[in-house]
């Protein structure tokens, strides 16, 4: 037996036929088509933002992030933006030093997800004014707020740039007033 082929002793070719009622393929069972999570990480493998749309334990999250970063970072530039990973499809794109990476379910539309990433980048760009990785590091909470205005539960909430940014800017106006008068004793 080849080294890679160790299987449980129970693996048998034929199964003695207890009649087990067949089930419909799982793909029919109200397939969810949605995003499972979104990650932003740098070329050095530093996670910059993570958004999970399905309850996942902290341990599992860390494992998935580590694994997926490895897979994506190993890919060469001209390769396809989609790859199958575990039971998910990963759609990713690199913008300068940052990888934007979405995991969607197999049925979902890959190209529109790719453009969803792009629209998010545009939103960041518009908000920060030619966004760079540092903006996202120092203003991570803003990056989250913008993402939340754009996506909810993994679904697009509004695709209009104007509506999303309007919501964020309103909040900023409130914030600035407060920020000014507390600058003295910061730590």
């Amino acid at each position, binding site marked *: 037996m080849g080294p890679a082929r160790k299987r449980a002793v129970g693996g048998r070719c034929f199964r003695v036929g207890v009649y087990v009622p067949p089930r419909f393929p799982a793909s029919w069972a109200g397939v969810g088509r949605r995003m499972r999570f979104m990650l932003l990480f740098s070329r050095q493998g530093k996670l910059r933002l993570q958004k999970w749309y399905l309850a996942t334990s902290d341990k599992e999250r860390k494992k998935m992030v580590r694994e997926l970063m490895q897979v994506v970072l190993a890919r060469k530039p001209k390769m*396809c933006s989609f790859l199958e990973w575990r039971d998910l499809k990963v759609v990713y794109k690199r913008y300068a030093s940052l990888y934007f990476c979405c995991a969607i379910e197999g049925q979902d539309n890959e190209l529109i997800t790719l453009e969803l990433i792009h629209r998010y980048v545009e939103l960041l760009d518009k908000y920060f004014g030619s966004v760079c990785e540092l903006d996202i590091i120092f203003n991570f909470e803003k990056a989250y707020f913008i993402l939340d205005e754009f996506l909810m539960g993994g*679904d697009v909430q509004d695709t209009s740039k104007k509506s999303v940014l309007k919501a964020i800017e309103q909040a900023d106006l409130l914030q600035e007033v407060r920020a000014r008068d507390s600058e003295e004793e*910061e730590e």
Partner: protein
Amino acid sequence: MPAVSKGDGMRGLAVFISDIRNCKSKEAEIKRINKELANIRSKFKGDKALDGYSKKKYVCKLLFIFLLGHDIDFGHMEAVNLLSSNKYTEKQIGYLFISVLVNSNSELIRLINNAIKNDLASRNPTFMCLALHCIANVGSREMGEAFAADIPRILVAGDSMDSVKQSAALCLLRLYKASPDLVPMGEWTARVVHLLNDQHMGVVTAAVSLITCLCKKNPDDFKTCVSLAVSRLSRIVSSASTDLQDYTYYFVPAPWLSVKLLRLLQCYPPPEDAAVKGRLVECLETVLNKAQEPPKSKKVQHSNAKNAILFETISLIIHYDSEPNLLVRACNQLGQFLQHRETNLRYLALESMCTLASSEFSHEAVKTHIDTVINALKTERDVSVRQRAADLLYAMCDRSNAKQIVSEMLRYLETADYAIREEIVLKVAILAEKYAVDYSWYVDTILNLIRIAGDYVSEEVWYRVLQIVTNRDDVQGYAAKTVFEALQAPACHENMVKVGGYILGEFGNLIAGDPRSSPPVQFSLLHSKFHLCSVATRALLLSTYIKFINLFPETKATIQGVLRAGSQLRNADVELQQRAVEYLTLSSVASTDVLATVLEEMPPFPERESSILAKLKRKKGPGAGSALDDGRRDASSNDINGGVEPTPSTVSTPSPSADLLGLRAAPPPAAPPAPAGAGNLLVDVFSDGPTAQPSLGPTPEQAFLSELEPPAPESPMALLADPAPAADPGPEDIGPPIPEADELLNKFVCKNNGVLFENQLLQIGVKSEFRQNLGRMYLFYGNKTSVQFQNFSPTVVHPGDLQTQLAVQTKRVAAQVDGGAQVQQVLNIECLRDFLTPPLLSVRFRYGGAPQSLTLKLPVTINKFFQPTEMAAQDFFQRWKQLSLPLQEAQKIFKANHPMDAEVTKAKLLGFGSALLDNVDPNPENFVGAGIIQTKALQVGCLLRLEPNAQAQMYRLTLRTSKEPVSRHLCELLAQQF
């Protein structure tokens, strides 16, 4: 530009982040973080009440630390406090912390829920949105319980702001996905559907997602969304690229909404309303047309958005699977993409074509791209694209191109990435078996597989080749010769030794006549590999040796010598030792007769679904098999095999009686393909062996029925003994059946009476009854004109072999039919044996001097001779199990063409002729039936099972009968009735 510049927010936070970034080592970072944590902790614990700003800042720092990957075990309460702040940014940070960090800490959840409740009631749209986001982000059951009833109200309230509606829709969607039972359906659902008409595109976008999810469980409640979605889509598709302002993305109008609408439509069958359907088809055509237009922008975003819609359109076309024209256009479009310079498009085209290959309308069109796909397999630089190409080749494979595809895949295998080798091996093995015309090609292919990628050839694959060789005596000699040659290679893979050992042990005698492969040569060839092999293989070889003693008595002394050697008899491995001891004793104690019996050639294996296929599907997840041309059936039958895998505990405790021959664990000589427990093995051999050929014997009930009087007053037998062949013109004399003949025939599969045909001149009515293998049919020919028909002659024709299968005796009718009159013709029918095609009814007459002729299919189908059979669940399953050869089962998965009504279905199944059995299927939604087809020559037991899936609007129908063509035929007949 926004009113803020970067980093203005919380200076302390920015300083902290810079500090962390300046840390030179991991240790320094941890040290800095611990210092900060201590600081924050003391601030939180301190006597001085913190103001909202400081709280916000510290909570935000904690969040940052958490996102760096450190654990945070305090600060939750401060975050919850922020929720009740009336400052937006403080609240916002509080919610962010909660949504990132909170798990179901019940104490906290109660407090959080309180805050949310207040915000939802605040009527401040920004606060409401924050609260809704939090619910969606956490999405826990407790939150669902608290708010699931409120959110629908917010969603449809007339005074909700658009942004609140959007958030409410998606929040509800999230809750529904997490716990559908918590979301009460009600009158709000109708109003949700009408959100599709909303002025605000953002609201529509959010609502479509919600509806798409809700309608899957309750398709009827949301039916009206189809026409609304179509008209919305149509408006988008036909709008100019600037009409939708901010919702136009790189000159593509509302791509997200379009994709979502197309997705929603995939939850339903094609619209029944002709106008809606027309409008939709127009949309789909417009999208396909636009793909050919020159791009409005060179930006990749433009083409991506456009193509996202295109691919979703193609998915819908494939989903409908009813518009051949569109399917072929879709295929051509994908064909163009196969050679596109964008890797992404090539990938998606390959993927999408895979599903197209399984449609009968486009299978041929897909096949024309075979060379491109093979080329992709060879030249693509990205393994995920190559994998798609391999999938597509697999999907487009059929008898006509199997040899080419298999040989290309084998060639590819030599250089394939390790990651996909096993899958390719499985695929090759399946295709080779499925499309093998001659089995020597199959054997060659599998041995090639082992040669090229032995490590990746799983047990299933080599077990399978053994099964097939054992079951087909025409290939055994060839197989023995081929493995013998393959074993000559100085370094051959261990799997090859296993296959070789097994086959030579069984069929080595077939090549023993050739001195080059005489018994001693065979033995020493095998034994030369022995010492390099693993324990499992050595155990198998020992079994081969004992088989050799029986096959070739001249090798007995040598083999006994091997068994007796200390390395065997005192082997440290208990399995090997036991085999050596037992075989040695067996060979010396037992007489030749006993030996011959014990070591007899293996009986044929019962046919089952290929376990390789099951394995592939396990690997790929559901739907993987759907790529095969009849893959739909494969994809679903997976579970039959997969579900009954024995647990390891049964394996490790073989029955003591079986131990004698050492039939344990590793592949034993008696049945390598079933290396599980010997106890199971015995069951396998004895209950399913060839002696227990499945057939439903006559039941007492049947014998009783057969004594009933035949339905006809005169003895049909006497009449049938003298059929009137002279009256029957040969099939060549009559025209082909009219195009709608099949459709007309279908109408009568489940009923016996009705109008068979009608045009301006003639109406033909049918009344019929069937009992046992006999039937009587009355045909009523009505002249609808006022002019007499002359030379009126209806005749029944038996095309092909039907003459020997079905006897139809007709009575002549008058040659003239007066205007407005009706004549009747009586047919006596006897089913001699099973048949597939119905007899033809040819009607000729002259009307006003012009000859008229018409050929129909007579509504006599095999199911008319069904005898319903009642049986208990236990009997049903036993018979079901007996009928488990792959060919005895026919299965179809198909879309519902009629509304799915259980009562109607029931009536149809009863009309079809089988008995309906209650309490057999564990799922009460399913239908199970049984019956016996009565023919003069034989009886065919039939079991059927129909599984409706209301959600997908599909059925799966499975037929098992003791005769293969009957299963298929019944399945086809019945499938068209729903």
